[in-house]
């Protein structure tokens, strides 16, 4: 394809010297021909051919001398260097976030007297004064009431602890929302819908900037520590992509080419999920399935490398003290039975139903926030939600602690050494075998109490997460959904276990459970429930299963996890096709062309502009428009580009020119070239047109003309047109009939048409 020569690629010295010096860093970047405006879509074809040109030039030069050869090697290796740096920085930031969250969450309840920077568990680590009965308590760590008044028990101490817990939670969330508001408003929310849109070709300047990175890291810790029902996985993906963007600017190979930059961002997203879950393979699959739009195979290997480096860096920082990457790494070795597939599928159905409920509720609430008065008080909203969460969460011990700890406890199996209420089974003291072997035991009163509290916690979490996700602080939803699923799964697991114990003479249980043998593991049900709920909300498939089995290390549990994930996706898809991220993309009106099939039988003429009652297409002619005409056209319309035709009579298409390039070229010409005035003729042909010598000097603008715009005929079915837009990443497409230009179809028109066909509001598509 003949390339529109926009930018001559930088000389090799500039390419290697990508960083520049301090003064250049402070200067305002001069908009170049070939860059894009904010909130516009990139031209994938142009970026791809620019990269091929650059590569060809380097390969050609590398034969000239040894120095050029070395430079070509460095250029080839720059991709791997970027991946290495991204992995290192994401791993470090994730380690810092984990450690800080650990400490600050415990800060709401008490403080370590010997060294204030230790969390509860770390404080009691070296203590020799723990007894078996209270193995969580040690004298070095005191709750606030004990510190301030010296009393540990009693109503007064309880109320004081309660009050201080709420105060700390409010303080943390107020700090978080003020920092976001003052320094980096783009740091709020999860980030994954916007990153999906950016990776499909959209430009949001500043979304992956340095301040956004800093503020998102700092406020994520504050938001998670304040006890709100949100997680840190989605924001970690955003943080990793910011790191990716940061390192891209070091190398001109990536900083000047938006298409190549998005390859790096895909790999960075994989690194982000990898450190969030400790699942490198799951991270790569998540990037492939959920986040990326175009995922060439070269990116697969590089993403894996980045994810591995990130996971390794996180492990060497060792935030959890036992060489594990995630707080809830459990290792089971108990088998599961075929009959248990029934409750697993039930959990899948629950996950699908909850996913639908959550998506509908959350989108309705977010829409209300966008359109009514509620959106005018973001700080107040955050504080109110935090207050409600803290006040309702403190009384229930399962919601008082952080959600990750809750999930960890629910996933863990009850050994004889567990002291929590959930493991308060009645042990037969006359057992001859050691109690590590968990036979089926009847539940003691502690278990029933724990079940009640868990049921209340479930309802609370279901309701409050709908209002929390989407607030103006960094918020993720993986951990809350997993918590909902884990609670439901554990309840079902305990129910099945008790049923198996009390009715062990039923046929199903007789074949499967023997007295004294392992039968039902409630922890496994919790895991399956967590997978089902997460799948119901995000509609992940393969990546979900891989993440879950990397989390637990149990390859034997793939089948139950898959059963639950598949069921929940089917049930959720029956109610609505979109996952939470696609629903947010549609709510915001981003120009994201989905991968779904378009099956209506409309033609290109039905969608193209201008319609019948609209003014005719604004075109430029190849050699008869004056500079003044062009400037008038630019001022009166706001189209992103103009077709260039042979003449107004014949209307045969020559090419297409972008608005931004036109503006810059005319501005430069007026400043630099002599003799160019408003009456000068603008020409796009190779040779200047024949004009009398008295006329002012004509202006040649051939270099900004794209000589091969995409065209379709007016009878092309829209199915094909949508396919072309999706596969090639076009922004606009011209419609011709027998060579004559009829109209233009832009991506926005395609999206509006698709929305109309699906009976949604076409006016909600905001961007181009």
């Amino acid at each position: 394809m003949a390339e529109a020569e926009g930018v001559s690629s930088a000389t090799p010295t500039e390419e290697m010297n990508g960083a520049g010096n301090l003064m250049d860093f402070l200067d305002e970047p001069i908009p170049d021909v070939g860059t894009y405006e904010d909130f516009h879509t990139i031209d994938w074809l142009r970026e791809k051919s620019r990269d091929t040109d650059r590569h060809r030039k380097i390969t050609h030069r590398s034969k000239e001398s040894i120095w050029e050869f070395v430079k070509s090697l460095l250029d080839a290796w720059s991709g791997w260097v970027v991946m290495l740096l991204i992995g290192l920085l994401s791993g470090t930031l994730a380690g810092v976030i984990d450690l800080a969250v650990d400490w600050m969450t415990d800060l709401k309840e008490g403080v370590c007297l010997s060294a204030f920077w230790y969390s509860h568990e770390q404080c009691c680590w070296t203590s020799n004064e723990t007894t078996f009965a209270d193995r969580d308590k040690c004298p070095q760590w005191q709750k606030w009431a004990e510190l301030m008044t010296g009393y540990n028990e009693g109503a007064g101490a309880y109320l004081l602890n309660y009050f201080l817990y709420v105060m700390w939670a409010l303080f943390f969330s107020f700090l978080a929302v003020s920092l976001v508001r003052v320094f980096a408003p783009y740091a709020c929310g999860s980030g994954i819908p916007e990153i999906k849109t950016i990776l499909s070709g959209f430009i949001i300047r500043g979304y992956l900037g340095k301040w956004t990175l800093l503020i998102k890291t700092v406020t994520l810790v504050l938001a998670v520590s304040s006890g709100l029902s949100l997680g840190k996985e989605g924001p970690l993906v955003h943080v990793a992509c910011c790191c990716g963007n940061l390192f891209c600017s070091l190398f001109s190979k990536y900083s000047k080419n938006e298409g190549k930059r998005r390859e790096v961002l895909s790999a960075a997203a994989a690194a982000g999920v990898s450190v969030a879950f400790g699942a490198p393979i799951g991270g790569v699959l998540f990037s492939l399935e959920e986040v990326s739009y175009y995922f060439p195979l070269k990116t697969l290997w590089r993403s894996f490398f980045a994810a591995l480096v990130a996971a390794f860096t996180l492990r060497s920082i060792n935030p959890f003290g036992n060489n594990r990457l995630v707080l809830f790494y459990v290792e089971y070795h108990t088998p599961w039975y075929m009959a248990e597939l029934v409750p697993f599928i039930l959990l899948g159905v629950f996950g699908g139903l909850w996913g639908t409920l959550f998506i509908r509720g959350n989108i309705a609430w977010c829409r209300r926030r966008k359109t009514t008065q509620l959106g005018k008080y973001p700080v107040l909203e955050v504080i109110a939600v935090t207050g409600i969460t803290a006040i309702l969460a403190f009384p229930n011990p399962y919601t008082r602690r952080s959600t990750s700890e809750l999930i960890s406890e629910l996933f863990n199996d009850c050994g004889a050494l567990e002291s929590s209420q959930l493991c308060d089974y009645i042990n037969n003291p006359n057992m001859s075998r050691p109690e590590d072997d968990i036979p089926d035991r009847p539940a003691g009163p502690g278990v029933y109490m724990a079940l009640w509290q868990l049921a209340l916690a479930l309802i609370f979490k279901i309701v409050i997460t709908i209002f929390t996700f989407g607030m103006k602080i960094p918020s993720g939803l993986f951990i809350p959904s997993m918590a909902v699923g884990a609670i439901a799964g554990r309840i079902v697991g305990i129910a099945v276990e008790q049923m198996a114990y009390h009715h062990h003479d039923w046929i199903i249980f007789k074949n499967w459970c023997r007295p004294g043998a392992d039968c039902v593991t409630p922890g496994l049900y919790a895991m399956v429930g967590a997978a089902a709920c997460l799948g119901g909300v995000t509609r992940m498939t393969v990546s979900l299963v891989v993440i879950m089995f990397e989390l637990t290390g149990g390859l034997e549990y793939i089948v139950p996890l898959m059963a639950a994930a598949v069921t929940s996706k089917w049930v959720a898809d029956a109610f609505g096709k979109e996952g939470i991220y696609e629903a947010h993309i549609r709510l915001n009106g981003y120009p994201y062309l989905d991968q779904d099939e378009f099956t209506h039988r409309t033609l290109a003429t039905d969608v193209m502009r201008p319609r019948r009652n609209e003014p005719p297409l604004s075109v430029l002619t190849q050699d008869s428009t004056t500079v003044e005409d062009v400037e008038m056209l630019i001022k009166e319309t706001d189209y992103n580009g103009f077709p260039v035709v042979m003449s107004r009579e014949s209307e045969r298409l020559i090419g297409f020119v972008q608005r931004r390039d036109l503006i810059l070229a005319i501005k430069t010409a007026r400043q630099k070239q002599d003799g160019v005035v408003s009456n000068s003729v603008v020409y796009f042909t190779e040779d200047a047109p024949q004009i009398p010598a008295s006329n002012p000097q004509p202006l040649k603008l051939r270099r900004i003309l794209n000589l091969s715009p995409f065209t379709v005929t007016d009878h092309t079915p829209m199915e094909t047109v949508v396919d072309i837009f999706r596969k090639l990443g076009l922004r606009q497409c011209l419609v011709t009939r027998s060579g004559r230009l009829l109209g233009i179809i832009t991506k926005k028109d395609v999206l509006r048409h698709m929305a109309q066909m699906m009976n949604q509001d076409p006016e909600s598509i905001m961007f181009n």
Partner: protein
Amino acid sequence: LVLALAVSLVLALTPANSEDIRCKCICPPYKEIEGQIYNQNVSLKDCNCLHVVEPMPVEGKDVEAYCLRCECKYEERSSGTIKGTIIIYLSVLGLLLLYMVYLTLLEPILKRRLFGHSQLIQNDDDVGDQQPFANAHDVLSRSRSRPNVLNKVEHAQQRWRRQVQEQRKSVFDRHVVLS
């Protein structure tokens, strides 16, 4: 970027504390003996019941039965990392808070004292945003026309502030991006 490199350097250089490894054995109640927790800092190969549980509360044949119930886990941590990370995080947070307080509260007061009230009334663009110091910076920059680093830093800061203002408008006021 510099900060991250500093963090990783600090973490790599903190010496290993001998208190940072331990073997923790939890032994549940057995016959008349109540439950106990034993901690010792021994290495991984010595992390089992026989080495860690001292003094052994049972005799002879019962030792094996008692030890079968005990669960021993080897754990290590890096206390230097934890201390360094928390202190770095708190200092970054403190700096950001100070800067935020300076931007929102102190700067308008300082500029008002330097330039008087009249200059601040001429706000050009935004209605709903209090950025009176934006104008004051223009006055400052116009008075000094030497292109030195300080001027450039001011210009860069101005540009950054305008960008943040734009972002704030699209996210918080018009709700165009990020619902």
